[in-house]
């Protein structure tokens, strides 16, 4: 009898040790490789905190609020107020087996407000924005299911999702893989993804320039390298390529061409490349971590862009963390973009969308998070506020005629995360 009891105790100890080892493997892999996957449809970095051996539930509410367009930049009589969005995010993650996790992400947004429609020359010749006449009300729901399979030195993931609005439907999917080398100091990541979207613009009978039904497809592939540099330093570099095909225009925008409004019309093909490099450095002396990201972007619509992000994660009082961050973004213009066109183009391409115009943007964010334990459950509560300002004068290059529709916004978020 004693031998049997001893054997049971030994087996229990072995099982516990195996569970601890598996948990360490998951935490290490998640912490070192999370975030390599970036595109619509690509298998994403679930459980970035490495707690996927427990059931996780995350909720976040955000209010996105765009600032009004200044009176000097809007056409007489046009709406000045812009978009507001309320966003609810839910994430559920659970281990299914020893080496298999399943995660479900759901996003629900309620949008309302007016958006930029087209641009006309003002009295002084400077472009002014015409906004959509009626307030737009829409809702978007996005669901993404993701499975991850952990091996000793590798991770394989697969995801599939849908996104739908009144006038929009998209199906997306992706496969990803990660391989650890060099005593787990080096991680190679790669993946592929796709998104198939269909657009049925509203009120196309009332606005004849709007199409009735259009489709587009997006295919993505990426490869990345993560490297542990020291006990407290890690870096990562990821190259991403995306191909867009089909209707890539905006059905709700127009361009003024030789005094006549025409439909927004962009090429039916777009090649995009993004090269993202990230750096993480922990300073034990002050119990803080430094994050730096830089991204170079290029596409064959002749847009190049640079993004710089810096953040500081300051831990305080064991359970509290304060995270200030800043972001700078600058982009050039698409080759066919103009605020308005004095004459027709031979290629028939037109867009006055501010998102294809040259500009720069500065944003800053402050975030606070606190951990606590109640009802024998671990919780993390977060609050953040971000302000985003864009302007032609913030661009790295000189911008002679900035688009009047450039956006400024505030973003407030509160969140609650638990693991049990």
């Amino acid at each position, binding site marked *: 009898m004693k031998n049997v009891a001893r054997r049971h105790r030994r087996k229990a100890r072995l099982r516990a040790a195996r569970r601890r080892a598996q948990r360490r493997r998951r935490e290490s892999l998640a912490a070192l490789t999370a975030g390599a996957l970036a595109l619509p449809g690509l298998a994403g970095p679930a459980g970035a905190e490495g707690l996927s051996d427990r059931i996780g539930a995350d909720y976040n509410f955000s209010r996105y609020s765009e600032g009004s367009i200044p009176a000097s930049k809007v056409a007489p009589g046009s709406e000045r107020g812009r978009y507001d969005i309320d966003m609810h995010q839910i994430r559920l993650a659970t281990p299914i087996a020893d080496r298999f996790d399943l995660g479900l992400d759901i996003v629900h947004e309620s949008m309302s407000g007016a958006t930029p429609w087209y641009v006309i020359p003002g009295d002084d010749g400077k472009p002014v924005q015409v906004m959509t006449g009626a307030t737009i009300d829409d809702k978007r729901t996005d669901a993404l299911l993701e499975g991850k399979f952990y091996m000793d030195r590798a991770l394989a993931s697969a995801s599939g999702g849908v996104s739908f609005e009144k006038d929009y439907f998209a199906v997306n999917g992706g496969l990803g893989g990660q391989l650890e080398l060099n005593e787990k100091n080096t991680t190679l990541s790669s993946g592929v993804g796709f998104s198939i979207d269909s657009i049925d613009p509203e009120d196309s009978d009332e606005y004849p320039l709007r199409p009735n039904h259009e489709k587009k497809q997006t295919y993505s592939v990426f490869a990345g390298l993560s490297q542990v540099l*020291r006990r407290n330093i890690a*870096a990562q570099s990821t190259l991403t390529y995306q191909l867009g095909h089909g209707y890539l225009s905006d059905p709700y925008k127009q361009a003024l061409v030789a005094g006549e409004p025409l439909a927004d019309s962009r090429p039916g093909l777009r090649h995009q490349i993004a090269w993202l490099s990230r750096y993480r450095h922990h300073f034990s002396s002050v119990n803080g971590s430094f994050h730096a990201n830089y991204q170079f972007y290029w596409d064959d619509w002749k847009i190049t862009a640079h993004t710089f992000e810096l953040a500081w*994660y300051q831990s305080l009082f064991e359970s509290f963390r304060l995270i200030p961050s800043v972001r700078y973004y600058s982009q050039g213009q698409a080759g066919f973009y103009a605020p308005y066109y004095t004459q027709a183009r031979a290629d028939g391409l037109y867009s006055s969308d501010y998102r294809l115009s040259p500009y720069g943007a500065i944003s800053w964010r402050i975030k606070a998070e606190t951990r606590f334990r109640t009802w024998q459950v671990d919780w993390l509560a977060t609050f953040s506020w971000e302000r985003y300002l864009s302007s032609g004068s913030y661009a790295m290059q000189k911008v002679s005629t900035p688009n009047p529709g450039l956006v400024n916004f505030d973003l407030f978020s509160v969140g609650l995360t638990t693991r049990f």
Partner: protein
Amino acid sequence: MLRSAASLLLLALPLLAASGCAAVKPWERDVLARPDMAWEPDSLEAKRNTHIHYSKEASLPGGGAGGGGCGCN
């Protein structure tokens, strides 16, 4: 020209640094395993920011969570 050179330097920095790094043993990963050392410490926040920037800028988001397309205005 100067800007292009600076961009290339920034892009190559992690690779240059990696070539001269010392191996860190598995039992020395306590700091690297901290949540605030993750590439994306808050996956919901990363997904939200990716979505907003993808909607409002021409650039392709190179960091963040996945998701479907949108008819974003």
